[in-house]
């Protein structure tokens, strides 16, 4: 059984990696397409039908481009930066539960790479390491704009991690577990007599609002894209990067977006649970596959939301960013935490 488990996990890891990279790849196309649509343009449509080969063309272009490492740059760290950023972006997907277990006859296959009991904290740990990729890359470039971008990125990520953590603690309090699978499974119960609709968003709307704002900040997406704003910093931490190393930086941003969409869908919108999931009387495998489809739909909806916001809202000023993070979101998150605790105590005593 040991080899079977190993094979299961191997297949799962490879497919999760493939799916993350594939979705990130097509997010780049979607971003360009959606940006065009939001601005009354057509968007890329030359490479393939509706431009579906555009990501491939972009990838080939990035690989073919000349590789430039600045003379004054620190070579080892210069290469380590984007690699680290990409690795940490991909590592997070290990704890995300993709669907209910598949029934393979003699055994069941869990659609989650690993169910550690501190899954949520693991995500936080990996995200907090992700900032090193930017910092090292920005510092090693030996360029003041890159350094400014790196400093902005790190201070922004540290600031918003706090509020994000507080908003998640409320979820942990409701669920009573830090494992992501437990959090998602707890949302499969009935609400208003409909199974699979007991989503945390109905209990934690404020928490979700804080979480999504922080997720935007953690992904360096507009309106929080100060680390790489073109106007002031000429691209920020990746000013000096070219070729595929630049590609890794840009690409990891989309992987991050995918992962944080998955986190939002899993933590607040029921993950792979969908309404009427138990009333339909589906077999275990059908439930699993439909669950995966539901989860993916939610994730894609969030990715669309990310892009929608990006092409709607202008960038914050830096002092506004810090004001929002420290003086608005953190007090709000703490208030949310206290209110959640109060309601839970009240419900328990009744």
């Amino acid at each position: 059984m040991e080899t079977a488990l190993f094979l299961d996990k191997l297949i799962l890891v490879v497919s999760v990696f493939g799916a993350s990279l594939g979705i990130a790849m097509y997010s780049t196309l979607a971003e360009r397409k959606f940006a065009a649509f939001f601005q009354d343009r057509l968007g890329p449509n030359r490479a393939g039908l509706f431009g579906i080969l555009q990501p491939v063309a972009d990838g080939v272009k990035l690989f073919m481009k000349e590789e430039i490492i600045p003379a004054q740059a620190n070579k080892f760290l210069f290469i380590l930066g984007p690699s680290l950023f990409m690795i940490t972006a991909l590592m997070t997907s290990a704890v995300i539960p993709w669907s209910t277990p598949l029934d393979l006859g003699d055994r069941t296959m869990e659609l989650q790479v690993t169910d550690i009991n501190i899954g949520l904290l693991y995500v936080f740990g990996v995200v907090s390491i992700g900032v090193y990729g930017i910092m090292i890359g920005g510092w090693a470039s030996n360029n003041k704009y890159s350094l400014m971008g790196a400093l902005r990125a790190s201070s922004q990520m540290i600031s918003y991690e706090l509020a994000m953590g507080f908003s998640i603690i409320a979820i942990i309090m409701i669920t009573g577990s830090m494992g992501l699978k437990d959090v998602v499974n707890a949302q499969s119960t009935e609400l208003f007599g409909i199974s699979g609709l007991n989503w945390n968003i109905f209990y934690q709307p404020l928490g979700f609002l804080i979480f999504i704002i922080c997720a935007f900040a953690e992904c360096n997406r507009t309106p929080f894209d100060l680390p790489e704003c073109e106007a002031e910093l000429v691209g920020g931490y990746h000013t000096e990067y070219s070729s595929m190393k630049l590609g890794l930086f840009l690409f990891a941003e989309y992987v991050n977006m995918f992962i944080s969409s998955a986190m939002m869908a899993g933590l607040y919108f029921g993950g792979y649970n969908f309404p009427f999931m138990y009333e339909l009387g589906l077999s275990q495998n059908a439930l699993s596959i439909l669950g995966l489809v539901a989860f993916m739909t939610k994730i894609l909806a969030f990715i669309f939301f990310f892009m929608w916001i990006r092409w709607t809202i202008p960038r914050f000023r830096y002092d506004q960013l810090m004001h929002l993070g420290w003086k608005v979101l953190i007090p709000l998150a703490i208030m949310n935490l206290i209110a959640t605790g109060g309601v839970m105590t009240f419900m328990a005593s009744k």
Partner: protein
Amino acid sequence: MSGITLTNRKKVLEKKKLSFSESLYLPAIFGGMLITLKHFFMKKATISYPDVKRPFSKVYRGKHVLKRDDQGRENCTACGLCAVSCPAEAITIVADERKKGEEHLYREEKYASVYEINMLRCIFCGLCEEACPKDAIYLTEDLTPANFTRQDFIYGKDKLVQPLNESCHPKTNQPYIKDGKPYEYKNPVYTK
């Protein structure tokens, strides 16, 4: 200041403190998102250019063409009226006399051996077209493309004269009519 303003549309911007609902920003953000979503489904303002082209206005004035008549002979008789009328002085003409055996090439007894238009000087006003007594020069819907050297912007007869196998009217793009039906154009035989 004596109270003179350059425009009567001046607005004084008042910096008011934001109300509570404004300071939440969220209503404004959702309003903005609604606007962008509306544009998402709107008809697109752009087209896929080389595949689809926008129709030009009927009075558009682009690159010049030196017309041939229905037998493929150049209309121009090198009278120089176009060069005189040109406000930008962009046209240079060298006249020459038609020799025997060239009747199938030039309609009149005099023709322009050199006809150059400097496209950097030309302002595409169309006065040459109006001045021409022989119906020889027209401004078409073609664009004059960008180039690398100034020399390449001086268009000679090689670029201006209508190609031989093209038998339609340069302005209307309709075929020549002869005896009530479209004229079938035959390339003239050059003998020297």
